[in-house]
């Protein structure tokens, strides 16, 4: 099981690649910003980030019963995926 900080490190690298270096989460400032409305990602970028972490953690976000409005920021997404481990 990966720790939250490991997941955040992985997400930082993935997001840098997905956004071609445009979004750098290495500082703390951006972790609570909304990925789509504030950091400029679109739904395809968001999905890329999500599936990359899913694959890395060997977890799958369940279909249907996810409250996406509570997963706007990178921190929220990281915590959600972290908690999926072991479920």
């Amino acid at each position, binding site marked *: 099981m990966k720790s939250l900080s490991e997941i955040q490190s992985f997400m930082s690298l993935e997001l840098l690649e997905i956004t071609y270096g445009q979004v750098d989460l290495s500082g703390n400032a951006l972790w609570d910003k909304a990925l789509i409305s504030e950091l400029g990602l679109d739904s395809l970028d968001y999905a890329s980030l999500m*599936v990359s972490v899913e694959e890395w953690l060997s977890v799958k976000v369940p279909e249907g019963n996810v409250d996406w409005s509570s997963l706007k920021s990178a921190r929220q997404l990281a915590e959600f995926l972290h908690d999926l481990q072991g479920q």
Partner: protein
Amino acid sequence: MKFSTDEIKLASDSVSFGAWHISLPTGSLSFENAKSFLSHVLAARQGKIFLSLSEATGFDCNPISDPKNLLPKGFIELQTSGTTGEPKRHSFSAESRIPKLRTRTDFCWGVGYALSKFAAISLILQVLEFEGSLSIPEVFDPADLVSSFNDDRVDAISTTPSVLRLIAMSNLAKLKQIEVKQITLGGEHSSQAIIDLAIDLWPSASVTHVYATTEDGFLFSCSDRLEGFPAEKILSESRFIDENGELFVWGRGTGDFWERRDDRFHFKGRVAEVANIGGFKVWPIEVEKLVAKVPGVDDARVFVVKNSLLGHVLGLEFSGTIEKNELRLALRHLLPKIQIPQLIQKVEIITMGSSGKKARIE
């Protein structure tokens, strides 16, 4: 393991009339079991038996209870997995699956398909019909295929493009030593790169790619060493392509879609394999063809992944010298954003399903 038609005919004489089920192992197959399997296929071709085939961990051959004699003699039933992962049973008359292509009677054919698959049965029936011989590996893996084809001195090989690429990666030098006069590619799309690989391996061989469906068997082939099929090969009295690009055979949609460019049709993909990404349809094979052209990419597989946010996303596995971030950057300039796979992974060897094809759904 090499088998002559005469040897199989002799063995088929001892197959009892009725209905039989054979489970073929996903692992090693002995000479005796391979002979038993081939003799039952021939017995079905002769109309003596109904034959049901499936895959299991070990070989088994047992009569099926059919007291009311309802199972049709001369028919073979296969459990197919296809590329979508949805298993289905399909039965057909053995006689109907003998391609209209004549083959040289003195050829030894290397069977480069898993034996429980439609393409393998079709090839075996064809070879038995024209009295050639068959080379069957003990284990369906790249190294064993190359050894088997080499030891049996095959004249011809029939396989999927994915398996050809894998066996070439396994032992290119040994594969080139085999004096192949005919290479037939089927079961999935043959790209120009794979046709070129076959030409490179055996420059003087005839390189043929075929299109067949489980429902209709062999439909058409092409040996001009170019990707796609000339329009006149596809369109006929019994076949047409509708305005959406779907191929119809005897009025029934195949679920396979084609795109016409100049005088040739190019395979676009199967309807069951289309990704619906947030309402946009994307054909994995079309993306794969473009990814394969990026310098540094040796091979690629584009597939559909279910996704709770967008419905589907695209996954990409690739092998080669290019790194993942470099490939993503290259794809940014090559493809519309909706076609850039969301999940990209660099691998040593591209994942292949048990059917010897690239899996399209995960």
